[in-house]
């Protein structure tokens, strides 16, 4: 994570993010704040997911059987590359020149769009916010509000340039997008959605939206491709019912979103009442490995964005600083599991471990605990001397008191230094905005001993 923060030029973005997450927190608090209810949901949702994760092969096998029994096809993708190849093949086999797509973190994770575009397939994001940023060529700002950083004027300028002149009123902008996207829904041969959760007993997936674009993508085109991270499954349809209500509650404080579709196979079998072909792509991409390791708990994540909304660090740093599709506390844990890399190491440090994320997580994931585990793995060997020295000083009374005595002239000297004369590195950063604490040189216990000594002798 870049050390520079609060870049002056991006204070507008920071304000937009802060305003947006505040709204989301208010919605959540007004609709889903009863501790008893939250706890009841959490216990059941955790139990469902844990049951699945205890026997994932058994349940996924059941899920695949269910999908196939209902006329669908299941594709198993070991990694992002395989998933892209599989999806491309399905599209090409369908003779698709146009694809419409609902919002899906998993599809962003595998970087699907560029690979389809390279094959000459036009892929249109149909979620309003995703549509805007796709046209603008920018990455998403926040899971629930991908274009929240854009002003209405910026959107109007974009639409006017690409489609037709339109006023900067959100209602007018939305009406124009609706018109454009409606045409694309009609013309696309393939619709791609993510999967919010999927029941193994009946092979039924849930797509949860408020706009209705998920419904269009999974209904009008002849082929429907659903892309699912393997951790999204739950054992039964009852579990799916639970998650279908828990997710909107956690994200928005609503017991249900505007649209929840439960899809089992190809609906076109019901006399054309939906797609003729249904494909489920199940993605591993590091998940099975994560399950075998100490960070498995992150696989319970519902992608509700609560941890982002409540995290003070995320709200100040912004989504892009995490350098990943997944931001905030859950992103800090998940990203290194899905794709390692030096940039990811810093994510575990970007937290005060305040615990608010864990408090608000509908699944009760111990995010601070997982970050701490990661820190333990990553404790830098370069600074070996520091922790060794610190451990000595903090475990031996005599050393501690000596260190305090010695620190006094040091800290006083540092206090006198201008901010600019400080050596670069943590000290300078720390020093800006702070006065160093005054250090007496003696210690509380030392003073008390001294006083007692004077009293006695």
């Amino acid at each position, binding site marked *: 994570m870049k050390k520079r923060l*609060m870049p002056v030029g991006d204070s507008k973005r920071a304000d937009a993010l802060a305003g947006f997450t505040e709204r989301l927190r208010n919605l959540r608090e007004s609709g889903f704040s009863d501790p008893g209810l939250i706890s009841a949901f959490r216990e059941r949702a955790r139990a469902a997911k844990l049951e699945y994760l205890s026997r994932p092969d058994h349940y996924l096998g059941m899920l695949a059987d269910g999908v196939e029994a209902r006329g669908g096809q299941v594709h198993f993708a070991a990694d992002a590359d395989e998933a892209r190849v599989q999806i491309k093949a399905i599209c090409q086999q369908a003779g698709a020149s146009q694809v419409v797509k609902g919002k899906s973190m998993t599809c962003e994770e595998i970087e699907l769009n560029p690979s389809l575009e390279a094959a000459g397939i036009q892929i249109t994001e149909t979620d309003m916010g995703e549509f805007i940023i796709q046209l603008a060529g920018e990455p998403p700002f926040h899971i629930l509000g991908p274009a929240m950083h854009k002003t209405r004027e910026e959107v109007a300028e974009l639409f006017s340039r690409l489609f037709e002149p339109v006023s900067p009123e959100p209602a007018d902008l939305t009406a124009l997008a609706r018109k454009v996207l409606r045409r694309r829904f009609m013309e696309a041969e393939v619709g791609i959605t993510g999967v919010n959760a999927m029941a193994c007993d009946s092979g039924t997936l849930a797509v949860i939206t408020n706009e209705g674009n998920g419904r269009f993508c999974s209904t009008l085109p002849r082929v429907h491709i659903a892309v699912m991270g393997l951790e999204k499954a739950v054992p039964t349809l009852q579990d799916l019912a639970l998650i279908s209500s828990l997710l909107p509650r956690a994200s928005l404080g609503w017991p249900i979103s505007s649209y929840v579709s439960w899809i089992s196979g190809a609906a076109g079998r019901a006399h054309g009442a939906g797609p003729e072909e249904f494909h489920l792509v199940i993605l591993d991409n590091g998940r099975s490995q994560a399950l075998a390791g100490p960070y498995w708990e992150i696989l319970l994540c519902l992608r509700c964005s609560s941890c982002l909304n409540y995290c003070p660090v995320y709200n100040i740093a912004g989504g892009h600083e995490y350098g990943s599709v997944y931001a905030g506390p859950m992103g800090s844990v998940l990203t290194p599991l899905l794709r390692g890399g030096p940039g990811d190491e810093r994510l575990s440090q970007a937290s005060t471990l*305040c615990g608010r994320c864990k408090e608000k997580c509908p699944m009760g994931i111990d995010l601070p605990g997982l970050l701490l585990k990661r820190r333990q793995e990553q404790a830098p060997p370069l600074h070996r001397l520091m922790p060794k020295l610190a451990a000595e000083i903090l475990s031996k*009374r005599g050393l501690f008191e000596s260190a305090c005595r010695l620190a006094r002239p040091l800290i006083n000297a540092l206090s006198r230094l201008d901010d600019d004369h400080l050596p670069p590195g943590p000290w300078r950063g720390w020093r800006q905005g*702070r006065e160093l604490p005054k250090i007496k040189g003696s210690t509380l216990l030392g003073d008390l001993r001294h006083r007692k000594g004077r009293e006695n002798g």
Partner: protein
Amino acid sequence: MNNLPTLQPRFFATCLVDSLYPQVGQAALRVLSRLGLKPGIPPKQVCCGQSLYKAGQVEAARKVARAWVRAFSGSAVIVSPSGSCVAHVRHALPQLLEPWPELALEAKNLAARTFELSQFIFRVLGRESTGVQAPAQPWTYHPSCGLHRSLGEDEAPYRLLDGLSGRARLELPDAELCCGFGGPFSVSHPEISSRMMADKLDAARQAGAEVLVVGDVGCFMHLSCGAAKSDPDLKLIHLAQALAGEEA
């Protein structure tokens, strides 16, 4: 746990209080003494090792933990002015010391007897007031993460603060937001840390406060250092000092 006035608590100052903020320790001792107690002060104590642990330095944290257990060995009750340190003792120490089964057992034993100051007064002694005056100037309270979330003590500080006579406590906007200290975080991410600090101090001013009472020692240091630079007229005192009637 019920009222045990005959059990004299042992006082765990914490390394920060010991080295930088002796006045906080003295205030805590005054509060306890006013309640009829004569706390002992194990002379070999230094630190619980929380910062090292949070930095991921397990071996270093273990070394410090062993020293802590030895320093407090045999204590009937331990009281400390730092919720985050008590949380560390309770949640991390026993597990950290697993390689030394006897020490681990002792750690588990001690952990069950270690309390944060307000927690000790409210829950163990059963008192709702320390019988002193609240700060004379408009004042508010920052509920630190270590005390309220990690330790799960959401009631004691508020009850005791609201049990002070005189000026009532002002509500702090966005109280549950972290102050930005986070131990090693303040060094690894100084800019974000400073911004969170600034937000916390601003919130106190928004509440109309001139005095900010802070529950934990790390937060107290962090916010004091920040206020000294950006808002020197905002007086910061520790929870122990408020409960001792300072700034009244």
